[in-house]
């Protein structure tokens, strides 16, 4: 936590304490996670990584319009949580939601087509990158107003409670989100209603361009606040899918058994900028380098090799994913822009948009 300033209104990055990634924890190798689950998390991380790289390329080619917020570098969080929940559970993401959508098993083609604003897009071209949703996959939406979806995730958890299912709801959000009122309202509400909801903070150290520790009262924006709401302060290495999986598994178990909400703060880092073509120049070189060395995917690759998975199997996964990304790209490019009629549909349940007779 540093509020040192070289001059008024200007943060002195040189004075800020370095925030390197956690060192590799070989102890996580011993966690009792089935090997097939680990291989699945590897596959997911490959999917998210390769998809996001392609999304970036397509943005630079001006095929993805508007904006996009990539999860490059943060894949272990999405993969670890997705592997710990059931297909009928609910997830709620932010505008940085490609990864969380794909991690629920949503097809790459429709997601890519949505980024390109095509009629075969997941949302028919009406939502775009920031609103990816697939109700049939339990992916209840990507929300672009910071904080709101934490409150909405509570509602999905409440609904599961009322219907007597043991579904859980997961809300992903960033470090910067912990300073908006909705975050605090959501936590208190979830605790007093003992809702089966899991709040997962992806702490990538930055809001858009400002390091969040410069504007946050405590060093760990989510975990340090949790005890104020009677929750355990759970801090995990968000660049280690096993660590995330284990924390998520415990939280899910608690929620399913009626034990109420949990909060997990996963420390991670985005490899690129906040959005679009942001080069992320506001970040000190040493910091970026240190985190690139702790890229979650090569680390996990090595771990799987040590655990006895053949290099060939991992290569095969990479290649198969690469093929699917290519296919999705072709699918998206081949899809037409939405027809004019789409403009006026789906405001109301009757499929239309009439506001008068």
């Amino acid at each position, binding site marked *: 936590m540093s509020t040192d300033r070289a001059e008024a209104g200007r943060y002195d990055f040189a004075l800020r304490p370095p925030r390197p990634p956690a060192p590799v924890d070989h102890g996580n190798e011993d966690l009792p996670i089935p090997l097939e689950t680990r291989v699945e998390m590897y596959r997911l991380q490959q999917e998210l990584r390769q998809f996001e790289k392609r999304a970036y390329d397509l943005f630079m080619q001006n095929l993805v319009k508007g904006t996009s917020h990539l999860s490059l570098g943060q894949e272990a969080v999405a993969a670890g949580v997705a592997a710990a929940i059931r297909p009928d559970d609910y997830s709620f993401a932010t505008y940085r939601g490609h990864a969380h959508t794909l991690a629920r098993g949503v097809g790459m083609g429709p997601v890519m087509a949505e980024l390109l604003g095509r009629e075969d897009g997941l949302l028919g071209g009406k939502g775009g990158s920031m609103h990816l949703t697939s109700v049939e996959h339990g992916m209840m939406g990507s929300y672009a107003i910071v904080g709101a979806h934490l409150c909405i995730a509570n509602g*999905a958890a409440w609904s599961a409670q009322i219907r007597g299912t043991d579904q859980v709801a997961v809300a992903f959000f960033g470090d910067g989100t912990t300073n908006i009122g909705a975050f605090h309202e959501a936590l208190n509400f979830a605790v*007093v209603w003992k809702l089966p909801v899991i709040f997962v903070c992806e702490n990538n150290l930055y809001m858009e361009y400002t390091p969040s520790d410069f504007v946050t009262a405590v060093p760990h924006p989510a975990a340090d606040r949790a005890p104020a709401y009677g929750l355990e302060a759970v801090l995990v290495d968000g660049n280690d899918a096993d660590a995330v999986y284990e924390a998520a598994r415990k939280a899910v178990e608690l929620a399913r058994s009626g034990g109420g909400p949990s909060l997990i703060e996963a420390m991670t880092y985005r490899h690129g900028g906040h959005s679009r073509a942001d080069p992320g120049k506001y970040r000190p070189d040493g910091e970026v380098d240190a985190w690139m060395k702790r890229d979650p995917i090569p680390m996990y690759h090595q771990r799987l090799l040590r655990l006895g998975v053949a290099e060939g199997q991992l290569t095969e996964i990479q290649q198969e994913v690469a093929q699917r990304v290519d296919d999705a790209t072709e699918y998206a490019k081949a899809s037409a822009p939405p027809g004019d009629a789409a403009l006026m549909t789906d405001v*109301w349940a009757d499929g239309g948009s009439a506001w008068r007779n």
Partner: protein
Amino acid sequence: MAELNYREAVAHGIAQEMRRDPLLVMLGEDIADAGGVFKTTVGLLDEFGPERVRDTPISEQAIIGAAAGAAMTGIPTIAEIMFSDFIAVCFDMIANEVAKARYMTGGQISVPMVIRTANGGGSRFGAQHSQSVENWCMMIPGLKVVAPSTPVDVIGLMAASIRDPDPVVFFEHKSLFATKGEIPDGEIVDTLGTAAVVRQGTDCTIVALALMVPRALEAADRLAEDGISAEVIDVRTLVPLDTETLLGSVAKTGRLYTVEENPRLCGWGAEITSIVAEEVFWDLDGPIVRITTPHVPLPSAEALEDLAIPSADRVYDTVVKSMG
């Protein structure tokens, strides 16, 4: 047949629907044990239990968010926002989340929820507890907006709002809570998007909403004594808007007056005025006149608040002056 006041009609309408749909739940501040700060939810906790009628913390975003999340996953909800002024602290939820969920997900998400809230002035509560803010919601695509003026309409439109698969913001008027009306026996279900001609007339059309309806009617009575036959229309729902009834009436009378409790700029009457001007302009016999609260925050003192909000006198005077 029974006589109920507007306040009791709220609970009556909700109870009717909670009996019909065992999944329907309701949440808000002080609504359960306390029966609501306006006593509009008295008896619901006793009949339906604490799982279905739930008190919340003072967290308007969490309230609307929870209602929305439950609604989009199979549980229809009623959320109470104690005073409509507080919509401002959860306007993101209402305007950006609830209203847009269906459209921006390509039709995947439905949010069958009702947001009930106590609206309007006349209670000497001052600028932050007296506003009429139905126009805030009217301007957002994806929201239906309802504001009944009588007990029977409260029940029927409440039922229609709850049964509607889209989000509805339901404005209950604070100054109407004590007004009484006859309630027919049996289930009452009305239709959204229907205005009511509450008094027939031939010389001018006075369009009003909620508390402005009884005032428009009182003015019409006095106008009749002067030989001016005013037709009074209770808009009842702003979205969907029953333009057929409004345009038909103006085409017949040739004169339009809107009576709005909102401050002047962008009140709902401006929208009705523009529709009338675009579509039945040649049927008009004189300028359209909007009677509104002036563009000021509402003051608290009795004398000033009464001066601000359109009164029957002001409606009467305005019509006489412009038709004279």
